[in-house]
């Protein structure tokens, strides 16, 4: 079956895509760092109860002979001062991807999606103006490389390097 439709509401979609990404493999087990290409600025639509934040990226092994334990912990931060200072968003905005098992060797596309309230909560003010969002990441063990496929075989040829999935980040407004 095939459905065809057009939106009847304005979800104010905004997104960024990086078409010349660089490898990111500098994660540590002790402290979080920025996950590249995950940052976006967004002003919700006036009707919005929630904002959906979504980040799509490729993750895998760090090199062909690298560690076979592959995982990453990602959490969301926000800034209301243009990026000068950042604060954890808090509950429901941290995910674990991959495995701590040594031989899983997991690789593939991953989509991280968070639903964020626009109303005030705790120390976080209501989301009325421009707010920046980004992901921080660290690894629990092993090694991980983002954005670059180490290998591909198919109609595009058999290639061992210089192949990337283009990461993208997007936000849209949601009315309950």
């Amino acid at each position, binding site marked *: 079956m095939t459905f065809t439709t057009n939106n009847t509401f304005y979800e104010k979609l905004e997104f960024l895509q990086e078409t010349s990404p660089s490898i990111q493999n500098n994660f540590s087990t002790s402290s979080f760092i920025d996950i590249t290409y995950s940052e976006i600025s967004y002003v919700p639509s006036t009707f919005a109860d929630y904002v959906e934040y979504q980040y799509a990226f490729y993750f895998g092994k760090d090199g062909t002979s690298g560690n076979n334990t592959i995982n990453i912990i990602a959490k969301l931060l926000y800034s209301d001062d243009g990026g000068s200072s950042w604060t954890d968003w808090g509950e429901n905005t941290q995910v674990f991807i991959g495995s701590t098992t040594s031989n899983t060797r997991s690789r593939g596309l991953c989509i991280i999606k968070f639903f964020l309230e626009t109303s005030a909560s705790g120390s976080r003010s209501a989301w009325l103006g421009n707010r920046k969002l980004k992901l921080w990441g660290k690894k629990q063990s092993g090694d991980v490389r983002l954005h670059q496929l180490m290998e591909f075989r198919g109609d595009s040829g058999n290639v061992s390097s210089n192949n990337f*999935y283009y990461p993208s980040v997007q936000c849209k407004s949601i009315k309950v």
Partner: protein
Amino acid sequence: MYIPRKNKIKKNIVVQSSSETSQLISSTVVDISGTEISYTPEANSSKVVYEFKIQFHNDPDQHNNLFYELQKDSGSGYSPLGKGYLVNMVYQFVYGQNVIEGYFILDSWSGSNDLKLTGRTYDNQREITLHEDEAGNHFDPIIKVYSLM
């Protein structure tokens, strides 16, 4: 190059879920069944997004290594889109079952073009079965294509 697209609206959203039988993928490139779609972008759109969701399970092998890519037919036959439209998915030693989910973003075009996913495994010791889980629960692939204005 970072490409910002602000205040965009999705138009001409097409969702397809065709009934497919389970499909064994081996080391020869084949079309991934249920992923082919003809699409005419909305006039004056800037980009087209191709989303996919496909169930798999590891059998008949313990390890899986699936290479898949997006191909496009603009009127003279299918061609792989190459860099940026390739994925290497790996599960090993875990008898993996999961849903492959993702999307590719293309420059828009005029008229009707066809899109599909093709795939192969690393070798015949890492074959994979699509469109069902190990218990035989069926899950037809879902393809969603839309234009960004």
